[in-house]
């Protein structure tokens, strides 16, 4: 242990070596983290979209078979949580609901030009049923992704709603 160049025991990492490793890791993290979050969000959106598509398909089959939309029903969906503020084991819940909403069209009353002697039977109101799919979730990004994915949908508060075409209501 002697010699002009010797200046103490060697081996181990210096502070600069540790900082260099941390710097490389921070660059890798900055590049990969947004992609990882986007991928996980896509997975959660795909889960909900899959359930919505199944629900719409089942409703369409019921409509084809019975001539009317099925009655109201609901189901809970558990989605994996990826937000840093929530624990890895905690799941974000979304509730998907099917509704059959009714509307009525009341024909206009007969015009004043009609002859008063004629007895006019007031036309009966026409009822319509419209299928509505709703997803309740507090996840704003999920709401935005659903609104972007489906045309004919809108968001109100924490609910995303998809409207299906209205059809004449079958007589009860």
């Amino acid at each position, binding site marked *: 242990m002697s010699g002009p160049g010797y200046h103490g025991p060697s081996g181990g990492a210096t502070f600069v070596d540790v900082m260099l490793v941390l710097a490389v890791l921070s660059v890798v993290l900055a590049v990969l983290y947004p992609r990882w979050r986007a991928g996980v969000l896509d997975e959660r959106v795909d889960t909900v979209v899959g359930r919505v598509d199944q629900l719409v398909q089942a409703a369409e089959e019921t409509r084809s078979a019975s001539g009317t939309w099925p*009655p109201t029903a609901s189901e809970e969906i558990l989605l994996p949580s990826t937000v840093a503020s929530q624990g890895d084991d905690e799941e974000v819940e979304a509730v998907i609901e099917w509704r059959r909403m009714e509307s009525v069209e009341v024909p206009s009353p007969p015009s004043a030009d009609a002859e008063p002697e004629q007895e006019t039977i007031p036309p009966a109101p026409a*009822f319509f049923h419209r299928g509505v799919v709703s997803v309740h979730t507090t996840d704003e*990004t999920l709401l935005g992704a659903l609104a972007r994915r489906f045309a004919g949908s809108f968001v*109100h508060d924490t*609910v995303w709603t998809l409207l299906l075409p209205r059809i004449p209501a079958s007589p009860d």
Partner: protein
Amino acid sequence: MTPVDTSSPEERDRLVAEALADSEARDQRYRPPSEPPKDDRWKGLLSLVLFVCAGVVGFAPPGWLATEPPPTVPDAARAVGARATVYLQAREIEAFRHRHQRLPDELSELPGALPGVRFVRSNDRVYQLVARGPDGRAVVFDSTEPRPEPSARTAALLRAVDES
């Protein structure tokens, strides 16, 4: 141990000089180098550059590296959603009125009651529907209007759905 002769001043001076030389040799053996090795200097500079790059990529990534921002619902779209919700609920209440010749006591009586809408019944024939818009302002439908009319964008939405 060999006894040291310290009788004469010369001998004592020689011993002191030897002790100082030995101490100096030990110091030189363990003294850190006066200048950092050249390796540490470029590593430090590279670390600094990489940290700056990480900050730029994290907070202001270039176009080829940026990911699509998470989707959000703009306030204008939320306003349309609030009006569409109120309109659809009003239409259903009118259908209920025609079927049962009365107003519902609560929205829960309706098979397709939408959430986020408050039903205020003034009397047996008059009611209001209140929903909260994106800016906190209320979207109100009053049944004293002869027929619930959708806004232009709501009408376009319903038309697009019904014609699909």
